């Protein structure tokens, strides 16, 4: 081979190599630069909006929030959609992500989640944060066609997670949550349970009791009574109480996915029948509806997404929001999930060094040991449900305190 042919061959190989590189880079150019790095959560938390670094000048990273502001989940999606843009501002204040600013757009799903999702895709969202219930989350997934990663921030619904279509829970799911309560009860020596459900397999209101029953019985416990009720509506449990009064040994755990005011109403009626030795336990719905502020809440057990204590990272973040924005956010225990959703998406971008949504999704699916505000999050080897530890909180002497952490 003469020198001219050798040079030609080398040139051709260089072209091929460049072309291959170009293929990969065409979807990765810009915002995040080269792959690698970790989202600096503490830098964002500690950023002082009155003394920011130079504004990041790279291509923006776009976070789309398709949020449900109705009275069904507005209690979390409204404050969540206030907090995430605020935290994006803090990230930008701290220099952005590898020199790229983070932009957030909120689209209310109203009665057409697909339209809201399309608006965000047209805007160029790199990933989405979606509403917690399937009614709206599923139309969004249909709109993205599984090509854009979506974090269903406040959801525990296992069927919404599917890594193959880039749909991720940020929380533990119903099975982990209610299984953890069953485990806690067994650890406490409680072997009898009374369960309230809306029906086997009913999303959330039935699935959580199903999971509790399965775990409780697998651990050797006995479910002595299963009662039905109407979630978020019933506050008069007379018929159920009359039946329970004839069965109870006054030593059971009463489990449901009911809201706080329902659990305390039920408790009052059961105590009125002389059943004052029961332990009441529930799900994240109790945190969502402010069990901490209910009367007659002493001893009630629940599973918040974040067991917030004074001065911790979530408490600091919420205090910072309140100081800067002049208003406190509600549903405090859920807020970390929204911000973690954004951090996870950003981490995916950093990991792949790309900006193509499908590539970001693939990177997110490989995340391991991410130290988020709500605990350690791993997607690698899962179907999009992080096997997180479940905090077990209990109202003790009027205070909402962490009494156990199950799993993780």
């Amino acid at each position, binding site marked *: 081979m003469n020198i001219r042919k050798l040079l030609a061959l080398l040139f051709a190989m260089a072209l091929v190599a460049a072309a291959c590189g170009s293929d990969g880079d065409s979807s990765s150019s810009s915002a995040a630069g080269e792959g690698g790095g970790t989202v600096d959560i503490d830098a964002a938390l500690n950023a002082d909006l009155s003394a920011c670094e130079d504004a990041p000048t790279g291509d923006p990273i776009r976070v789309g929030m398709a949020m449900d502001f109705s009275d069904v989940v507005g209690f979390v999606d409204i404050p969540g959609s206030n907090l995430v843009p605020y935290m994006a501002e803090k990230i930008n204040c701290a220099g952005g992500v590898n020199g790229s600013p983070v932009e957030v757009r909120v689209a209310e799903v109203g009665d057409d989640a697909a339209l809201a999702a399309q608006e965000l895709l047209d805007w160029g969202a790199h990933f989405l944060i979606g509403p917690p219930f399937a009614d709206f989350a599923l139309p969004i997934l249909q709109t993205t066609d599984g090509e854009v990663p979506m974090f269903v921030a406040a959801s525990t619904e296992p069927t919404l997670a599917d890594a193959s279509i880039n749909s991720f829970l940020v929380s533990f799911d119903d099975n982990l949550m209610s299984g953890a309560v069953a485990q806690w009860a067994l650890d406490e020596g409680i072997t009898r349970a009374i369960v309230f459900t809306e029906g086997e397999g009913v999303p959330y209101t039935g699935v959580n009791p199903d999971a509790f029953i399965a775990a409780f019985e697998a651990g050797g416990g006995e479910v002595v009574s299963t009662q039905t009720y*109407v979630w978020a509506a019933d506050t*008069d449990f007379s018929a159920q109480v009359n039946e329970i009064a004839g069965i109870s040994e006054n030593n059971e755990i009463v489990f449901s996915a009911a809201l706080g005011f329902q659990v305390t109403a039920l408790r*009052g009626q059961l105590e*009125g029948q002389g059943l004052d030795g029961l332990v009441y336990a529930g799900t994240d719905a109790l945190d969502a*509806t*402010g069990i901490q502020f209910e*009367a007659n809440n002493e001893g009630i057990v629940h599973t918040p997404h974040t067991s917030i204590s004074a001065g911790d990272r979530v408490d600091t973040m919420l205090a910072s929001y309140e100081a800067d924005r002049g208003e406190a956010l509600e549903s405090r225990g859920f807020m970390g999930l929204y911000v973690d959703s954004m951090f996870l998406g950003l981490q995916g971008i950093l990991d792949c060094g790309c900006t193509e949504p499908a590539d970001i999704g693939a990177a997110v699916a490989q995340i391991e040991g991410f130290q988020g505000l709500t605990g350690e999050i791993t997607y690698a080897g899962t179907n999009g449900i992080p096997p997180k530890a479940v905090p077990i909180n209990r109202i003790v002497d009027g205070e909402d305190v962490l009494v156990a952490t199950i799993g993780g």
Partner: protein
Amino acid sequence: MVELAQNLIDGLGRGSIYALLALGVAVVFGVMHLLNFAHGELITVSGYAAFWAITNGWSWWLVVPLIIVVAVLTSLVIERLAFSRVRGASQFTLLLTSFGVHFVVSAIFLLYVSASVKNFARPAWTTQSTWALGPLQIETFDTVVIVVTILTLIGTNLLLQRTMFGLALRAAAADFDTARLMGVRSDTVIRGAFALSGLLAGIAGVFWLMRAGSTTPSAGIDPMLKGVLAALIGGLGSLRGAVLGGFALGLAEVLLRSWLPGSIAGLTEGFVFALIALLFIFRPQGFVSVAHAERV
């Protein structure tokens, strides 16, 4: 047997609240032929008033009259702002207007107050106090609700039978045009009907909110549904029927919840609606027949 007796008392307690709600719906229907789907909003607004008052340290002794006053005022304001504009319109328009009021009130609280559940302390006796009657443990709450409802029904009956306003209201319910020809002022009787409806909703709201200990922007939906359903069961436009419908609905809910096997107990609401459908097949007019009056 004891459980049955217990359930009957519980059903009467629950039915009493429904009866008060249904009576409020029936009073307005009588004079305007308006099936008021905004009736539950009186409880939504009262609920937020109760939340505000209790979180500001008011005792329930003050909160009770507050709830009633707020319900009456809200009823009058809704009539003035919404229903007075569509008097004389078709029933369909009235119906849509009432839906509109429901959604607007709900949205106002959602947007300008909070989407979160707002909890407030219930009086302890509403859930924890019982008294024994032989082998029965009767809730003090049920007892109070039943007694207050009976007194309210007696009072309402006296108002309707012994006062000029009552006479005008009954005349308007029977035949509004003729009543006007006889000198009944339409504004007075309609506003009076809304005030009375608000009063009844306020009394029902006191018990509803005492039991719930919370409110949300959509807190009015359930009481609205129960009130409208009970009024329909009783015979739309009949005040007596509304009361009967309320008690029947309360009893049906509690007894079915108790009697249905556990595997289908979750279908209690469905069975209640199936019973209502059966009733309407055999008695489309409800328990009590009402001569059809011309609408306003």
